[in-house]
């Protein structure tokens, strides 16, 4: 089984990255998201925030807290309760020179906006051969684990990952949340920014006070290991790190790759890790069949065929409707399921 390199376990490169000479504050993901919008709104007066309850209320998760006081109602726009209008108006704003940051209150409510996202936002650059484009960010809290009512727990990334033209970004920690959202706002194409609501306020980490970017399309090795690669994004990265810790006590050295951006996918970092470890476990909350784990598995199989020592394992949600609060824990990938899958790969 494990033969070497247990000693290389440790924090990944991202933790070592920081903005030189910048003071830091300990922030939650929700605060880091708010700071990214605040800084970009300061920097560029074409950046607008719009959505349901984003103004006076500061957002139901307080991710836009304080913005309306600072920038006024022309730049922090409470919208009627109409998701298609939020995205449709944003298309009109973005194509004519603004940089709207639209909020969909929960990913479970994104369906009415999908026509606008798929039929227009994703296509405008291509169908006008670059004459018009849509520099728009659509933020939305996603995922389970907070015991909410129905339709508040979904992870629909796969829908958007089979739709060319939309970048998909999912931070797993406050540092990345601010840096990735800053990049997303500065990006000239539509970016779907999925915020892991389960860990919005679960922990604080030092975040530089100044604006900085974490580039889109670059994965992070969140933990260095040698025997098996755990691949994940968003809230599941923390669960993978927990699992890696436990595996470490058993003498199994697990590397954790946090994809951060799902489209475009950083295949190089992913394959580099799997070529090294020879084993991979993909972890996501979304249902298993046609989940993005299937694509990750295909990429690994295509790109690291000869190095693979076991089939790529998938630890995912089930192909069922996301359960109400009672059964939420049964649905969500747990540390134990990840550990079992890693052992399976090692015992193959």
């Amino acid at each position, binding site marked *: 089984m494990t033969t070497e390199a247990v000693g290389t376990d440790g924090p990944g490169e991202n933790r070592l990255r920081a903005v030189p000479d910048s003071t830091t504050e300990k922030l939650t993901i929700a605060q880091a998201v708010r700071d990214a919008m605040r800084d970009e709104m300061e920097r560029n007066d074409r950046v607008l925030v719009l959505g349901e309850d984003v103004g006076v209320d500061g957002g139901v998760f307080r991710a836009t807290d304080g913005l309306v006081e600072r920038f006024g109602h022309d730049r922090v726009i409470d919208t*009627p309760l109409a998701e298609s209008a939020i995205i*449709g*108006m944003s298309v*009109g704003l973005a194509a*004519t020179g603004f940089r709207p940051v639209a909020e969909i209150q929960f990913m479970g409510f994104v369906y009415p906006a999908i026509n606008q996202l798929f039929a227009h936002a994703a296509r405008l*650059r291509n169908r006008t*051969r670059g004459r*018009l484009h849509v520099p728009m960010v659509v933020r939305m809290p996603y995922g389970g684990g907070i015991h909410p009512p129905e339709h508040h727990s979904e992870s629909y990334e796969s829908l958007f990952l089979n739709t060319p033209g939309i970048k998909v970004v999912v931070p797993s920690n406050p540092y990345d949340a601010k840096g990735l959202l800053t990049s997303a706002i500065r990006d*000239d194409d539509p970016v779907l920014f999925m915020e892991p609501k389960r860990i919005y306020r679960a922990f604080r980490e030092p975040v530089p006070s100044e604006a900085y970017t974490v580039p889109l399309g670059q994965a992070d090795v969140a933990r260095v290991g040698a025997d098996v690669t755990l691949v994940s994004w968003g809230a599941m990265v923390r669960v993978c790190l927990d699992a890696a810790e436990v595996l470490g006590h058993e003498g199994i050295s697990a590397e954790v790759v946090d994809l951060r951006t799902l489209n475009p996918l950083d*295949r190089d970092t992913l394959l580099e890790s799997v070529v090294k470890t020879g084993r991979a476990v993909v972890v996501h909350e979304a249902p298993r069949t046609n989940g993005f784990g299937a694509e990750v598995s295909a990429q690994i199989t295509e790109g690291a065929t000869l190095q693979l020592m076991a089939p790529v394992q998938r630890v995912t949600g089930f192909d069922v409707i996301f359960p109400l609060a009672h059964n939420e824990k049964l649905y969500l990938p747990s540390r134990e399921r990840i550990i079992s899958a890693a052992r399976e790969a090692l015992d193959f």
Partner: protein
Amino acid sequence: MPRTPVYEAVTERLDILAVDGSVDQTLMPDLADEQIVELYRDMVKMRAYDDKALKLQRQGRMGTWPPIKGQEAIQAGVGRAMTKEDWLIPAFREHGLMLLKGIPGHMIYAYWAGDERGSCFPEDVRCFPVAVPVGSQWQHGTGVGLSLKLSGEKAAAVVFGGDGSTSEGDFHEALNCAGVYNVPTVFVIQNNQWAISVPLHRQTAAATLAQKAHAYGIPGVQVDGNDIFAVWSAAVEALDRARRGDGPTLIEAVTYRLGDHTTADDASRYRDDEEVEAWRARDPISRLRLYLDGAGLWNDELESQLAAEVHAWVDEQVQALEAMPPHSPEDLFKYMYAEIPPHLSEQMASLIEEVER
């Protein structure tokens, strides 16, 4: 407890130019003779442009084409009332408006012939590409209006759609938001009575589409869409309101689609010749011609001069269309994002290799 009326509304209809070419002088807009002649020339040009596309389609030189025949007065009237600073957000039956906005004729042909380059409009033309999904463009009208308002521009967004699209939720969301934000947007419904095979009375139980504006707290008006003066007047009023900062307007222009929904449709399957003939008698072009004749502004000689001129112009558009250089395989990939991501570069390389093999 009393029952008291809390809201009452009246929807007006505007008619100025009658079928016999006579006008209601009290409502006649302030248009110089040259402007009226120009509107006539615009409509004749639009019809010839449209006819040519149908011919090209039958010859296999054009893809599916949605004809505008019968709807030229709306397009000329609104098109001429707009300025260069106004944004046009079309649905897909607004070729005439797009021409007036400054889009070269061969480009509109190119789009419908299957070439995305047809929607890469000149830099200074403020126009969205056509919107095929039906109704989704109404929301862009509100968004562009909000953009103009926030930028402090004295310009309007003018968004078009058909009667069928008023059944889509996006129509209602767009009008609602436009009212809330008081944006400089003019919503124009080309009510041509038929959404492919479904007549208006199967789209709505409402007596008019214009009255829907009341529900969103914005002004709405119905006009005879085959009456160039009524269309012009309503458009000018709405655009002035928008530019003054007094908010959006809904215009329902009642017209008739004399042709099929598209070249892939056969309207004789679902509507009577009698109905079509009745509307043919209300044709917007012949009606204005009668007015011009009566006013001594036009004659057969001018008509044949115009026909020759328009014919030559249409031919130029066809030549320009057919002179467009071929696509390259790269075109498929290079406009998806500002920069081509690695996975697309790889796919592009594999296609090029296959094509060159």
